[in-house]
């Protein structure tokens, strides 16, 4: 299972506490993880990625294993630790304001 940490507002929207775990088949990438997340929690569609283009929303960032993966290609493999469930994939609302 892939572990995902959502920001507060998306946890509230998805009605989950703590981490979300999703099963992903095939290569573990941003795209496959987010596809699985949105399949399990359809209310999140459009909140992390734009509809249609599936581009990351501008004020959302992706972190894992102390790396900023926001600008990595959607089909690039995520770190092994994420694929093995040792580390979570973090969806983060960008810091803005004071």
């Amino acid at each position, binding site marked *: 299972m892939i572990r995902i940490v959502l*920001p*507060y*507002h*998306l946890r509230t*929207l998805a009605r989950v506490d703590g981490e979300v775990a999703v099963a992903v088949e095939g290569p573990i990438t941003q795209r496959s993880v987010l596809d699985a997340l949105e399949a399990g929690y359809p*209310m999140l*569609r*459009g*909140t*992390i990625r*734009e*509809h*249609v283009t599936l581009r990351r*929303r501008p*004020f*959302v960032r992706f972190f894992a294993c102390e790396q900023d993966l926001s600008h990595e290609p959607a089909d690039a493999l995520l770190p092994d630790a994420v694929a093995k469930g040792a580390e979570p994939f973090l969806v983060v*609302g*960008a810091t*803005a304001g004071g």
Partner: protein
Amino acid sequence: MSRVRVLVGTRKGAFVLESDGKRERWDVSGPYFGGWEIYHLKGSPADPDRLYASQCSGWFGQLIQRSSDGGKTWEPVGNQFTYVGVPGTHQWYDGTPHPWEFKRVWHLEPSLTDPDVVLAGIEDAALFRSTDGGATWQELAGLRGHGSGPAWTPGAGGMCLHTIIQDPHNPNRIFIAISAAGAFRTADGGKSWQPINRGLRSQHIPDPTAEVGHCVHRIAMHPTRPNVLFMQKHWDVMRSDDSGDSWEEVSGNLPTDFGFPIDVHAHEPETVYVIPIKSDSEHYPPDAKLRVYRSRSGGNEWEPLTKGLPQRDCYVNVLRDAMATDSLDACGVYFGTTGGQVYASADAGDSWNAIVRDLPPVLSVEVQTLA
């Protein structure tokens, strides 16, 4: 006994205020969707327990929430608003072409007859409709495709479609307004549209009497007289007696004719309410006195309503969707401020009380009169 339910959208969530017909004691519930901007929420005239809310965030985009129990519980429904075809460009603030981009839903207008049908006015300006309770949304693209779209410009708040008025006597006739394009009317259920801005004068556009480009802030109609429209424009309060074919100014003796909301008394179609704001450069009441102005003659002669409203040191604004009336006798009038107060009058404006004083900045106020 009748009850009223006031639906308040704020910068940081939605609130539901309820009272009996006396409108003296209020129960306040919320915030719903705490931390999110709630541009608008409104109930279905066909089923008062069916509510729709526009929830948005700069981080996480647009959501639409639906309630089937009068706001006690909510569920997210469809949030995909995709323009038909290639949306093209409108004018940017400096007059250069700018791509049409979805930003948010400003206004939700449920059908008068079917709780599963709802219209949505969005930024960048377009009109969408759902016929399945908000699950899916389709653009009524004839509006944006009217031909004048490339000349539309955003107002200070964005290029928003903020007003949707359905003619209760003719389901094919709808009026809408856009900042800053102007007012439009359809007679065929939204397939085709015509601008209805003759008589408007706007100094912020090169041709002050152009067919489009006017910053209309709000339009109001009494349901028994669908051919009579009242408009609060950026500057000027206007009136039309021919469904928008022509407009005449009725600002009369107002201390300033800049403002945002306008509304009509529930039982007196010639009684109109506005809240004058000092200017487009200073968005607060003139003389720091919060005054609602009422005309009982359909405009031109206005009286200030001050009892219970702050008459010194007041620097709040009242936004375009933040005033509403109930249909009790006497008519109730409600408005919310950017300072977080929601004021109510149970006597058609003669006197006012704050239902709540410390909400986040209020974006919208709607009222349901319940049996």
